[in-house]
Every structure is written in C-alpha cells, then in structure tokens.
C-alpha cells in the first residue's frame, strides 16, 4: 500500500505525457518480464541439459580419432607405408587439437579429473607412439616393439578411461534427467501461471491508469456542459495531479469562480440601475405634482397681484366708509390671495398654514353665515414646525366641498393641532356625509385622481399626500378615518425634527 502511495505521489508531480509514458513502460516491462522469464528458465535448463551431453559427444569424437590414429600407427609399424606415416602425423595433430578443445570444467571435479587423466594419458601415449615410430624408422626392432607394447597398453587405458567417463556421464545425465523432468513440468506450469496473473495485473493496472487519467477529464466535461446550460453553481473540481489536467481543472475552477462573480456583479448593477430609475420617476412625479398645484393656484388667481391690490384698495374704501366687517372680509381675502402668491417651493410653518385656513374660514363664514361652524384648537408650541405649503387649506376645502356640500344640518369643521410624541398631529374633521373605506383606499393610493380631476378644480388629496411623502420621505404621514354619514377625519403627523433638506431638491 505504501509503495502504491509513493507511486501515486511520484506520478502526481509529473506531466500527463510523463505519466502516460511511465504507465505504458510499466506495462511493457511487466509483459516483457513475463515473456522473458519462462523463456529464460527453459532455455537455461535446456542449455544445462545439452551441456551434459556435449561432453559425451566430444569424448566419442576423441575416441574415434584415437582409434584412427592407432590403426594408422599399427599399419605403419607393420607395413611401413609412407602414406600411413602421413596419416599418422595428421591424426596426431587432430588428436592433439581435439584433446585441447575439451575444456576442463571443474563444476564436476570427478569428471574433470578423469578428463585430465585422459588428456595426460593421450600425451603419454603420443610420446610412446612417437618413440615407436622413430625406432621403426631407425629399424631398431627391439626398441620399437618395446615402445609399441607400452603405447598399446596406454591405448587400452585411455579407452578404458573414456569408457569410464562416458559411463559416469551417462549415469549422471540419467540421474539429472530423472530428477529434473518432473520439476521442468512444474516450472512450465508456474510460468503459465505467471503469464496469466501478469496479464490480469496488466489489465487492472491499465484500467486503473486510464481511470486516473480520464476521471478528471470527464468531471471537467460534465461541469463545462452544466455551465453552457447556464448553471454556474458547479461544484469545485478536485484534481490531485499537477499535470496538464490539473492545470486545466484549476483554470476551470478559477473561470467558473470569476463567471459567478461577474454574474452577481451584473445583477447588483441592474438592481442599482432600477433603483435609480425609480428615484428619477419619483422626482418626475414630484415635479408634475407641483406643476399641477401651481397650475391650480394660478387658475385661482388670474392676475393675482392686480386682484390683491384691488382688494386692498377695496378694504381701505370699506374702512373709510366705516364698514368694518367688509373691511375685514376684504383684508382676509387679500391675505388669502397673498399666501397663495408666495413661492410655493419654500416650506412654511404650521402657524402660517393655520393662519391661511383661518383666513379661508373667515371668508366662508361671511359667505355661508350659520350654515358652517368652524372650530380651531391649536397648541401654540407647534406653530414653528416646518411643513410644505398649501396642505391644510386644500384638506379643509375638500372637507367643505365633499363632506359638507350636500348636507341639511349645520356643518362643522374641527381643526386641531397638538404635540404628540415626536411629531405634531394635525386633525381635520367634519361631520359631513363621510366616505366609504374603498374610497379612502382609492384616495390614499391615488386611483381616485383621474376620476376627480374632471369634477373638481380643487387640489386632490392625493396630490397633498404625494407631496407630504416626498417632503418627509416617509409613507405613514396621513391617515383618513371615516364612515358613511358619520363624518370624515384626516390626521396628519408632521415630524418635528424636519430640517428642510427635501425642499432644495424639489
């Protein structure tokens, strides 16, 4: 297991090319070993066997040459043919060569010693035959006969020893053959086993290698496929190798990561843009609302300065003529008019707004006498609180027009302004016919606006609400409570801590 881990560590650090080469080399090596090993074992055994027989062959050759030599030697001694003498020398040389060619192999000392004996005896034999031949040539009959008989004896000894060695070799070879025979069969069987198991091992190794190499690739391709289908949330691909595939996998991981980041960035941007657009829309609406308010204000004061001056002149005339009520009436009308001539963008105080509705109410009272009652309850501490202009008067006008317009009894309008927690609460209440809950919702959400513009030239409640919301940047600023026949109550909650930032924008 350790070796396998080491191998893996080793492979991890190399390129795909190297890894592939190593894998294939390992496979080839294993296959070679399996094919060479049996071949080697069998061939070595065969060689060993043939070596044992080689000696027999050589000995037989030696024996044959010796026989030939002996026969020509005897022939020469008997008949003294010169041809025989030539043959004798020829065979002498041959015998010497053959004897020399037999290497003494000391792996079997007994055989080596016998062989050595044989070689030495051949040398002795040839000494004797040479001496005999010399004596024969010198016609020394006694001497050549003596040498002949000596050489003849040695010839016999040599033959005996060759026979002895041959026999011994034969017995040894038989023994070897018998003892080796069964085992050779076993070796062959085991060799087949080696081949089969190495083939198995090779197949497993190949599968293992291929799996190791292709596994990350298939993971990569799967992940790439998912990305093309728009799923950027692919899992991180883990590759242990530091080869090309490892590089690819890491690059891929980085790529998916950056794609993910990029996509989320784009989403954020789009969100921001849509918010900006909304803001712009809001600003536009503020502008349009103001324009509408201004328009209505203008409608109400055709040449307002002329009218204001005229009214002031009227008031002075009334005073001169001693008509105090008329004078006050005209003065209030003029004041109302002047309030409307102000720069509408600038915020006013609650006190200003209250003053405005007082003027308005005075005029209405003069006009409708006892038909309308007007009750004002103001907490003096909140008079300096800032608020947008043209808010309260339209609400009162609304209450008068819609709430008290068609009723029989005396209409009453309450205006209460008091301090409540962190804001100034301004309450405008009538005891008119009231409106339905649906209508309230319509008014608050602005749906009623389109319907009403035709009927009325007053400033719609929605316009007021919209301006308040934008001015204070707060939704929960106006509430309307009403029931049919039970009057309507509009409550404004004006924040006390307003600093007037919105006005410069709007």
């Amino acid at each position, binding site marked *: *297991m350790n070796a396998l881990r080491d191998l893996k560590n080793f492979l991890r650090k190399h390129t795909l090319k190297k890894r592939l080469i190593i894998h294939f080399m390992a496979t080839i090596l294993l296959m070679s070993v399996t094919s060479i090993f049996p071949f080697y074992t069998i061939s070595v055994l065969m060689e060993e066997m043939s070596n*044992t027989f080689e000696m027999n062959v050589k000995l037989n050759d030696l024996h044959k040459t010796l026989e030939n030599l002996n026969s020509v030697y005897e022939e020469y001694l008997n008949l003294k043919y010169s041809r025989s003498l030539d043959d004798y020398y020829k065979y002498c040389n041959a015998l010497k060569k053959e004897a020399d060619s037999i290497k003494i192999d000391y792996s079997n000392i007994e055989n080596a010693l016998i062989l050595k004996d044989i070689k030495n005896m051949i040398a002795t034999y040839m000494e004797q035959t040479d001496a005999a031949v010399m004596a024969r040539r010198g016609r020394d009959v006694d001497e050549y006969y003596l040498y002949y008989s000596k050489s003849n004896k040695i010839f016999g000894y040599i033959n005996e020893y060759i026979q002895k060695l041959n026999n011994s070799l034969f017995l040894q070879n038989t023994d070897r053959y018998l003892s080796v025979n069964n085992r050779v069969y076993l*070796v062959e069987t085991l060799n087949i086993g080696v081949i089969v*198991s190495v083939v198995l*091992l090779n197949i*497993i190794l190949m599968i*293992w290698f291929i799996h190791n190499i292709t596994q990350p690739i298939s993971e990569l391709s799967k992940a790439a496929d998912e990305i093309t289908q728009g799923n950027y949330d692919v899992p991180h691909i883990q590759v242990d190798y530091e080869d090309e595939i490892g590089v690819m996998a890491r690059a891929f991981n980085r790529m998916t990561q950056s794609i993910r980041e990029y996509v989320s960035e784009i989403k954020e941007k789009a969100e921001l843009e849509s918010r900006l657009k909304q803001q712009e829309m809001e600003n536009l609406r503020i502008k349009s609302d103001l324009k509408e308010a201004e328009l209505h204000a203008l409608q109400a004061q055709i040449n307002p300065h002329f009218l204001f001056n005229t009214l002031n002149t009227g008031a002075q005339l009334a005073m001169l003529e001693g008509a105090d009520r008329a004078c006050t009436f005209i003065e209030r009308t003029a004041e109302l008019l002047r309030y409307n001539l102000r720069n509408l963008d600038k915020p006013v105080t609650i006190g200003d707004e209250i003053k405005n509705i007082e003027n308005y109410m005075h005029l209405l009272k003069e006009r409708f006498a006892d038909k309308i009652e007007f009750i004002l309850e103001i907490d003096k501490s909140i008079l300096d609180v800032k608020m947008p202009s043209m808010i309260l008067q339209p609400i009162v006008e609304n209450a008068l027009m819609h709430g008290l317009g068609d009723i029989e009894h005396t209409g009453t309008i309450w205006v209460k302004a008091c301090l409540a927690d962190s804001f100034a609460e301004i309450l405008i209440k009538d005891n008119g016919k009231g409106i339905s809950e649906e209508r309230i919702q319509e008014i608050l959400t602005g749906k009623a606006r389109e319907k009403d513009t035709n009927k009325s030239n007053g400033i719609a409640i929605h316009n007021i609400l919209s301006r308040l919301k934008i001015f204070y940047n707060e939704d929960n600023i106006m509430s309307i409570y009403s029931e049919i026949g039970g009057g309507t109550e509009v409550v404004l909650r004006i924040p006390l801590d307003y600093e007037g930032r919105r006005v410069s924008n709007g």
Partner: protein
Amino acid sequence: MKNKFFVTFVLFLVILILTTTGVIFYRIRSTLKDTRHNTGIIVPDQIPKYHFAMICKDDDAPAWLSIKKGVERASKEFNVAVEFNTVSTSNEEDLYKYLDIAIASKVDGIVTYVWDDGQTGPLIDRAMEEGIPVVTIGTDAKESKRIAYVGENKYTSGVQLGRMIIAVTEKKGGVVLLDSNKKGNEVMAQNLMIMGIRDIIKDYPDIHMTTVEYDSSNFLGIEDAVSTLIKDNPELSTLVCTSEKDTLAVADILVDLNKVGYNIIGYGNSSELLRYIERGVVFGTVNVDHEQMGYDTIRALVDVRQNDRISAYFKVDSFTITKQNVSKYIKSGEE
C-alpha cells in the same frame, strides 16, 4: 479502494509465483550441477590443488575403509583430489595396471600398496623418474626409490597379539594361528607379525601354537579351515587371526556353529568387531589407526610437493582393544 486491494493481491500473487518458480529453477540447476556419481575419486569441495592416485587392495576391506576415511579427511584439509582404485585380491594384474595408468596420467603423486617388491619396485622407480612422488602404504618396497612408507610395525602388533594369547589362555593350551596364504611382501609382513607372537609365547612351553594355512582368495576357504580345525582339535581353545576380515569371519562362523567357548584374538576395530568384543565373542583385537595411516600418506605427498624433503618412514602405533576398554571405542565409533 477495492481496486487498489485487488492490484496489491495480484501483485502479491505474481511475486509469489515468480519466487516459487525461481526457487524451483534454482533447485533444478543445483541438481544438475550436484549430481555426483561414484567414480572412485575423493574430491574436496573446491577445485583441488593436486591430483593423487591411490592403489589399494580389497583384501582387508574394513581396514581400507578406515584408510579411505583418513584420505577423505586429508583431501578436505589439504584440498587435493585422490583417485581411489581398489583392486580385488583375485585380480592382481589390475594393481600393475592402475599403477601404470597413474604414471601415464601424470598424476601429482601416487600412494600404493606393495604386493611384490620385484614387480612393484620397477614401476615405483619409473614413476619417480617421471617426477611423480610415490608413497607406499601398509607394505613397503624398501629397495625402490619410494619417498616414504606409511604403515604399522607388524612385529609390535605381533607382540601385542602374543600378550593377549598369554592373557586369554592362562599360559597353557592349544592355540591356532590362522594364516592366509599370502604373496610377495605380504608374506614378509605376515612373518614379522608371527615372529612377534612367537617371541612372546616361546617362554611359555605349555602353550602349543600351530599355524593353519588356508586359501584367502576363496571365501569358503576360511570356513572350511575353521570347521575342520574345531572338528580335529578338541583341545583347541584359542584362535588367532591376523586380519580384520579373518577375525570377523571366524567370529561369524563360530556364532553360526554355536561354538562360543573359543577365545578369538584378532585384528581390527570395526563396529561389528567392537560389538563382538563387548559381548565376549571376541576376546580382543590389535588395532592400528588406519584412518591416521590414510591421512599420513596424503600429508606426506602434499609435504613432498611443497617442501621436497620429508621423513621416509611414518610409523603408526598399534594398540589393543579388549572388553575393558571397548566402551571408549564404541562411543568414538558412533560419533
């Protein structure tokens, strides 16, 4: 994980098979190399330094086996090979032949048994002329140019036999000396031994010793001789043998005939003889350390090869084994 386990398993299998094959293969090779066949050559474990030839006789086989043991010991110690040619008694021509072969084979040295000065001497001289040192063993060829003789003092052995005769017969009675018909130098050796015996017992007139000759070349010779002896000499109490082979044969015959009342005095220290001594079948034997003799011959040849000059006479002392000291030899024999 499973995959890895499988790989490891197959790898293990391959290694196992490879190892087994290797072991078997190695054993086959060593078998091929190791097969030895008895060629009669004693070899050391390494390549021998010298190649000697030894010619001996199977006449007194147990003694020669001991000698061979000594030769084997020396062979290992001095790293020499010895061609051990045993010639049967009935075919004495072979003795000449093997000596002749040894000379023709130009061996580094010859150890030979001398059966006849007249025939062996010239061959020994020829070997010496060829530069082959010759050491004689058992019997000597005094007139030859042999460089050394290794052997026992036959006369001393005879004296020891004589002393045992006196001890066993209580100085009276009939004693028969079984004397195989020998030839050549053996006769001299035999006579020396008999002389030793006679020199001892001549002071005891009540001991009547007769010598019976028989044909040692024939196995039945001694059996016939012993049966006849027992039948013809009722007063016979003691049988004396001069060789180990004879001693064993006489003891066997007497046991076979169920005649255990005889004293047997003999020669040798084979384990069978020792057992006979222990059981009282054989009274005692004279011994020579034959193993030492074999060892000395080889040592002499190695010495002469390396130092040129050696002592010309290696005498091996003889000693007796009786029931008193037999246990010592049985133990050492079993070792």
